[in-house]
């Protein structure tokens, strides 16, 4: 699914992200436990800032297939078979958008986008990705609304 990148480079990048994630986590925990290190409320800004770093790292790890979604590999696809660099770049965007959707619905949306982009003519692929990216956030809102309705009106569940 990804453009042909040197796998060693990719692995190094992933290791660096994991190291950053763990370091930031360790600092947050130590700061939270030992609040005396910072005077007054300064430690709060530290904790908040580092929490943001952790969230950012977690999201980027997700986007690169570290945690879930795996860049569309969820349906049995091998990494390294998408050649269009621009689309691959935007694929990260699609993965990010799928994260703001409710879990199963987001996975289905991503899998369907993957299936569609695989078969669509190369010349139309960039426009198709753009259309997914443009409609994604609004669709996420709709999906969450459906989720909310399910909570309010429990009944037969529609497929996610």
């Amino acid at each position: 699914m990804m453009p042909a990148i040197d796998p060693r480079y990719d692995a190094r990048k992933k290791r660096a992200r994991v190291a950053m994630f763990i370091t930031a986590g360790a600092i947050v925990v130590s700061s939270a436990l030992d609040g005396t290190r910072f005077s007054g409320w300064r430690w709060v800004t530290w904790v908040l800032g580092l929490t943001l770093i952790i969230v950012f790292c977690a999201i980027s790890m997700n986007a690169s297939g570290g945690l879930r979604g795996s860049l569309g590999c969820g349906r049995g696809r091998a990494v390294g078979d998408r050649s269009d660099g621009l689309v691959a770049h935007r694929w990260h965007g699609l993965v990010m958008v799928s994260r703001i959707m409710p879990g199963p619905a987001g996975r289905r949306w991503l899998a369907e986008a993957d299936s569609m982009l695989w078969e669509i003519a190369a010349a139309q692929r960039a426009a198709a990705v753009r259309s997914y990216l443009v409609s994604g956030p609004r669709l996420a809102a709709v999906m969450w609304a459906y989720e909310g309705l399910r909570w309010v009106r429990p009944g037969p569940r529609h497929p996610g």
Partner: protein
Amino acid sequence: MGLRLTVQVQLVLQALLRDPAKEMYGLELSEETGLQPGTAYPILLRLEHEGWVTSRWEDVDPRAEKRPARRYYRLTAGGAVQASAALAGARRPRDTALRRLAQGDGIA
């Protein structure tokens, strides 16, 4: 949440109604309607949520087929009836407006 019958929704319904028993996958629908896939998907999702459309994943081995599985959509029996009625209802005011325009009534 009610279904708003926008032009795009009508296009999707028309494409599905051409052969209500036939299953269509996203790209096929997109080509048939001229809509971008990102536009067609939310419509299909809404139709599915309303119970007009049903969908399923294609049962294939992606490695053997050398492509990911497709998601197939089809009108339900009730959905086909409702879609036909809705399209007929949507056409009526438009036809009336066009007739009025042609007669010069709609021009201020």
